[in-house]
């Protein structure tokens, strides 16, 4: 189960990265085409659709790596026990919220499908196809938030630190080794 979920988050993240490469290729094709007098049809629309797909498919992956920003200025001052309580509250709130929003995005896709909506650009594509990755990404995000909430409630697992937080906590360089001890927690 754990293995399957991690694969799911990572797979969606990789798909999202592929979308970013695709954005780059589409934009380059558009400029090169312009130089040679060829119009790449609806390249703007495609870049937008790819961006939407990329940003939502990566939600769970980013979440698992602590990439989403949260304010830890206050919670990091709490004791171990109250910090865990705080994280549980936040995770349960987020689970409910994200699950609801994922439902709304799925509903949007379903509506686009049932009304057979088309994109407004030169190349008309059924909207549900380009909106589907957004809804899918949000559903995977909801799964990952609920996953972490469950792990927090059951096993006391903590929310992963962001890269910048670990940048601010890691001692990756020491210039004055002897200054180190008395500086912890002072004057913050």
């Amino acid at each position, binding site marked *: 189960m754990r293995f399957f979920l991690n694969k799911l988050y990572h797979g969606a993240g990789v798909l999202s990265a592929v979308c970013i490469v695709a954005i780059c290729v589409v934009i380059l094709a558009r400029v090169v085409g312009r130089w040679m007098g060829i119009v790449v049809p609806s390249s703007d629309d495609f870049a937008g659709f790819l*961006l939407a797909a990329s940003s939502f498919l990566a939600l769970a992956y980013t979440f698992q790596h602590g990439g*989403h920003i949260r304010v830890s200025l206050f919670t990091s001052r709490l004791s171990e026990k109250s910090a865990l309580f705080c994280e549980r509250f936040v995770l349960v*709130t987020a689970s409910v919220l994200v699950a609801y929003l994922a439902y709304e995005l799925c509903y949007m896709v379903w509506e686009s499908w049932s009304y057979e909506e088309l994109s407004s650009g030169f190349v008309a594509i059924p909207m549900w196809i380009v909106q589907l990755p957004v809804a899918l990404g949000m559903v995977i995000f909801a799964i990952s938030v609920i996953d972490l909430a469950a792990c927090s409630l059951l096993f006391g697992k903590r929310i992963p630190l962001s890269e910048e937080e670990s940048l601010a906590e890691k001692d990756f360089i020491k210039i004055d080794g002897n200054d180190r001890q*008395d500086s912890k927690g002072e004057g913050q």
Partner: protein
Amino acid sequence: MNELIIGGILLVVLFGFLASGLWVALSLLMVAISGMILLGNDAFGLIYATSTWGAVSDWSLAALPLFIWMGEILFRTRLSSDLFEGLTPWLGRVPGRLLHVNILSCGLFAAVSGSSAATAATIGKMTLPELKKQGYDDKMAIATLAGSGTLGLLIPPSIILIVYGVAAEVSIGRLFIAGAVPGIMLVMLFMGYTMYWALRNPSKVPSDTVSYSWSVKLKALLKLIPVALLVLFVLGSIYGGLTTPTEAAAFGVVGALLLAYTGSSLTRESLVGSLMGATKTSCMILLILAGAAFLTVAMGFIGLPRMLAESIAAMQLSPYLLLFILTLLFVVLGCFLDGISVVVLTTSVVLPMVLQAGIDPLWFGIYIVLVVEMSQITPPVGFNLFVLQSLTGRDMIFISKAALPFFFLLLFAVVIVTVFPGIVTWLPSEMTAN
């Protein structure tokens, strides 16, 4: 229910969720939904879906992941050490010598990386031990790093300016042009202060031991050329009107890949690492932007921004007083929120008020970035200060005191830009006139 009561409740909801550590993007969504419920509007699910789709499928935003990717590629090359080695021989005769390497490498590195914490950490990791070894004053070494680490937010191609441009519907190309002069002004202020300090405190700067011959200088210059060309090419094509920012970003990625390839630092690992890093950062920013888009729509329904704008107009508040109050507000917000969140929160609530007061949204974008830079080193809670604390192992009081002059220099820059708005608006209007 009265708008003011709703506004008050929403403020409590916002700060409650933020302080408890709920993710910023989700906190914005929570506030928006609470507002809609208080208003008795039950179509918020539908409104959420449409505003989110509209916000994230906007093609001008495509510049964002591409610029971030470009930065991530360059971040993994030898760029930071090339900057250090390339700049050192040239600054041998300027008062304060190696301290200027800190400022200039941060400025250049920031132009491509866009994250102030990462800039301060990367450059500092290399320059701080060297400065220490040569006997420079610790305090000033840390101070120059703290101050110039924030330059990345302003110097184009800046991520935060793209976010502002999209959220406030201001042309990103024009914002990039507008950021150039204030960015150079800031670098000059920092360097000027460092020279003044070095002349005042000759005992804290080691006496000159190395002098560099011209052949060494020219060899050093060669290390700087590739990255300078890349920056010139990307910005030049935007400034010259040849490409849109998004197209320039795509070329920037190609250029960065080329640079990494010729510097033989392009491995499978670094390529995948840069791409996944860019994916995470751009996903994080877009989730916040999508949340802000929904919040803006919800605020429109509640009518809070309009009401604030009208009351500002009725009070006949002078623009200067308004800016003074906003500056205080942003510095406080910036102490615990990151720059991007401050910008999107502002555009969804404050922007109508600013426009009502007759302030140019282009100018306001540069102003807000300057204030956000300032908040990054606001003693004793600015985010850059925490990074420097872990980097140096010094206590927060020492770091805050060291960074204080640079905090005031940034404040001074905000004042100059307010008194002479032409510094921001002159170049864009000149360039679009032709």
